[in-house]
């Protein structure tokens, strides 16, 4: 009796669970294709914008306009037309449209690793960034980086800081470093490690060097922000405190307070201007002679 009660309880819980999982706006089973002209009657602006985009060009191989036009993405719309509109009877949800995008673009190399990307696991769908109704490059709804900033507000804030990669100036695009459709790299970077990515533009830092600086060799992000910083050279912290965090001894870990600034009674070169890197300028690695090379002052 107890087992029957338990079984019935589970059934009672599971049935509504399955019912709740039915997708919204599912196309009715008996829907037929109404034709793009039917869509145009009510959605003239959307039809015009679609025809102006690459998806509206019939001469492009695999183009939806050679198949069912609007209904290639939005599904057969006869029920939607008969009802006089509404979200029922037509594919309008981002999730369902993403499945339609995948049907054509899923084999492309751009989407090959979409399944493992952070955007997919965060439920970012194709229509969050792309639209078939714009004639922009890659059908993006907005240009980079503005598009990416709508979600990545912390990155927007960093890119506006005084020391920054020229992202807002349009010279470094988000997709120069990141693959928004998924990749093996952490944060979807287009490389297997941070350093490998950075060296593509900063190959002068690659070395290998006779005298290496271990945290530099392991990860540029140990000392730098990628997008922007309040501190010069995109540093995570202002020297000397950045360097003092790892190096003790005599002059590395002396306290360099206000009294040691240019305006203080005892200005000290380790406190002012570029601080430690005034002398230790070869901080990414050095081939300099002997002890001086080992301390990155040559």
């Amino acid at each position: 009796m107890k087992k029957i009660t338990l079984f019935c309880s589970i059934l009672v819980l599971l049935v509504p669970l399955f019912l709740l999982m039915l997708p919204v706006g599912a196309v009715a089973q008996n829907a037929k294709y109404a034709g793009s002209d039917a869509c145009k009657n009510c959605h003239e602006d959307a039809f015009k914008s679609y025809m102006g985009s690459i998806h509206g060009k019939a001469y492009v191989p695999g183009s939806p306009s050679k198949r069912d036009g609007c209904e290639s993405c939005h599904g057969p719309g006869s029920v939607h037309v008969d009802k006089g509109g509404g979200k029922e009877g037509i594919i309008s949800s981002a999730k369902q449209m993403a499945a339609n995008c995948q049907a054509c673009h899923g084999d492309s190399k751009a989407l090959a690793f979409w399944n493992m990307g952070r955007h997919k696991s965060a439920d970012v769908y194709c229509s969050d960034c792309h639209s078939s109704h714009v004639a922009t490059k890659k059908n993006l709804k907005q240009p980079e980086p503005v598009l990416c900033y709508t979600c990545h507000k912390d990155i927007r804030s960093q890119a506006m800081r005084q020391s920054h990669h020229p992202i807002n100036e349009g010279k470094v695009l988000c997709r120069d470093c990141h693959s928004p459709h998924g990749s093996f790299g952490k944060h979807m970077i287009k490389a297997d490690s941070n350093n490998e990515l950075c060296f593509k533009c900063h190959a002068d830092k690659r070395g290998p060097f006779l005298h290496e600086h271990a945290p530099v060799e392991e990860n540029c992000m140990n000392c730098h922000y990628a997008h922007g910083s309040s501190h010069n050279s995109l540093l995570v912290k202002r020297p000397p405190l950045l360097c003092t965090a790892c190096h003790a001894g005599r002059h590395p870990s002396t306290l360099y307070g206000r009294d040691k600034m240019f305006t203080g009674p005892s200005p000290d070169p380790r406190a002012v201007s570029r601080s430690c890197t005034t002398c230790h300028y070869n901080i990414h690695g050095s081939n300099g002679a002997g002890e001086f090379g080992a301390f990155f002052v040559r």
Partner: protein
Amino acid sequence: MRSRYILICAVVMLFLSVSFAFSQERNVTGEVSVTGVLPYVSGNEAKFNEYRDYKDSTVRPFAGGYLQYDNKKGYYLDFSASDIGYDTQRYSLEGGKYGSYKYSLLYDEIVHNQTWDARTFYGAPGSNTLDYVAASGNRPTNDTNNWVEFDYKTKRKRMDAGAELSLMKPFYFTVDAGREKKEGTGWAGISQNTSTGAEIPSPVDFTTDHMTAEIGYGKKPFFAAFNYYYQKFSNDDPYLNVRSPFPSVANNDKTPLAPKNDYQKFSFAGNTQLPWNSKFNLKAAYAMANSDKNLTTSYWTSGSSPTSVTYNDSKFDGSYNTQNYAGVLTSTPFSFLTGKAYYKYYKKDNTSDHIHWVQGGTEFTNPLFGYLKENYGAELDFGIMKNLHLIAAYGHNYIDRRREDIPKDKDDVYSMEARYKLPSLATLKVGYEYMVRAADHEWVAGDPVEEQYIRRYDAAARNQYGWKVDLQLYPLDYLNFNFMYKYTKVDYKDTTLGIQNTVRNFWGVNGDLTYFKWMKVYGYFDWDKLTTDQFQRRVQNQNAANPWGPIQNSTDYNWTADQSEKNYDWGLGFDFYPIPKKLTVRLGYDYVRSSGTVDYNYLTAAAIPSGQSNDSVDLNNVDNYRKEAFSIKAFYNATPALTLMGGWSYESYKYSDAGYNGYRYTLPVGSATPSVYYTGLYADPSYKANVYYLGANYKF
């Protein structure tokens, strides 16, 4: 200048003539624009122009546009140009046949202006030989007003060509090659001992060539791609010959600059579809890097002869290789369940030369740094009810380094996220992440005693917690609102000397509203606060290295630094359409503010400098700045093709930093034999600017 105007006119004429030639066929569309920019800048023009090429009090025409050709049979060609003739110019040509092939050509310039009108006592700043006319003994003149002026500025010129062949679908082939030249003046340093140094200009003359080729296959259920990447870096100035002002005699101190190197990488990436809506992804890569350098065998200190260094080999051959393997399995066996499991292996093996040298009777050998990183983990996304998902994940990282202090790290990362999505209305995400890092610390007899107590933050043991809330509202087609909050705290639990903890709070908001047909409002606000606590010890006497030992005096003392860095920015924009489709007025305002403070405390009274206190040594302006930008522009569509634009913008950047305020070019101030020389790099970057715009845009 003249050639720039000729180039601008030629390109504009090209755009217009192509448009007229093909106007009947309507196969060509595009637009061409010319905007005259007239800035009036007071203050630091380099910072104003950091990534720009404007000129104070000078009208410069910035022209650009695009051409799109489509023969409506599958062939297309897109050409775009911007900032023609200036340091920020860019040209791009892309074309091909849909579904068969495509090609691209790119030329792009990126200028980076850092400081103009820097000054130095050297005669040829930016060259690879720095010499000066001595004023007294070996010393240059201290009259900084007569030093030579120069600019810290670099410019990159990038040329790229690529092609992709997809005629034999599902196979494809891509190839890309390019060259980037980076030229200009950067910075270096010369130092003779722990109390002398000079900031010096350094030549930048880099060439970076790259080539990449990929062949792949993409058709369900398989995808596979083989990729080869090659990069070669060369430096036309591998050494900087510097006459140092600190030795007692004229000298030539040859210091090495960035060595040439080359890099190759072979990689495979692919995946295969599996039953139960699953996919297995695999990547394998092997890369090699090499460099070589003839070693310099001496350097000057402050004496009358250089210090010589004798190596077992005068040429250093540097090399390393990396291996990377990764497997990721994703699966959605049921509509309410998605899972991911992964394993990644990355190893960097340093196979450079071991170079031995003797100095002061002690033999040295360069340590070779390499490391191994392994991480694995899993993630489960469970749709517990309609529109509500719970995501749980675990990840483990293992790092093994060839490094003496902390050779090994083990991280365990746990995270949970709840995501509620109401279609066409809102999305709410709440997430939590906890990471614990265990770190081996090693110290052997003979190492500096203070190393027992130092824990370097990049590898030190830690507990890390983070919260994130993300709300997106999109209830109406014309209304969007996003809010994000992030909190992260890191406790470096085993650290005695070094960073103790950091806390970061970030708030971000943005929204836009399109109201009727005559106005659009958009805005954003971000606030970010980072606090860091450090505990440090000055150690002069190795016997006094123990922070909790009995020796606490003016040369061996503990101190703390509590740092706070606040950044916030906000902006508002209005687009008005007083005459819809005819006249648009755009107003914009952006405000960025940063303020940093350091609360220093000597924990030993004897260490406080004479005349100072724990309050007087604090810093209340660490990279403080305020940047405002206001603009108003009007766009008038004179005809469907022709748009006229006029506008004005105001920018103000005010910077204050304790380390740069009251800047001096020599220290000690007024000394006949300074121990430090500066050039003005990054000094006083504040500026104000009024910029006027007038332009036209023609569409065809």
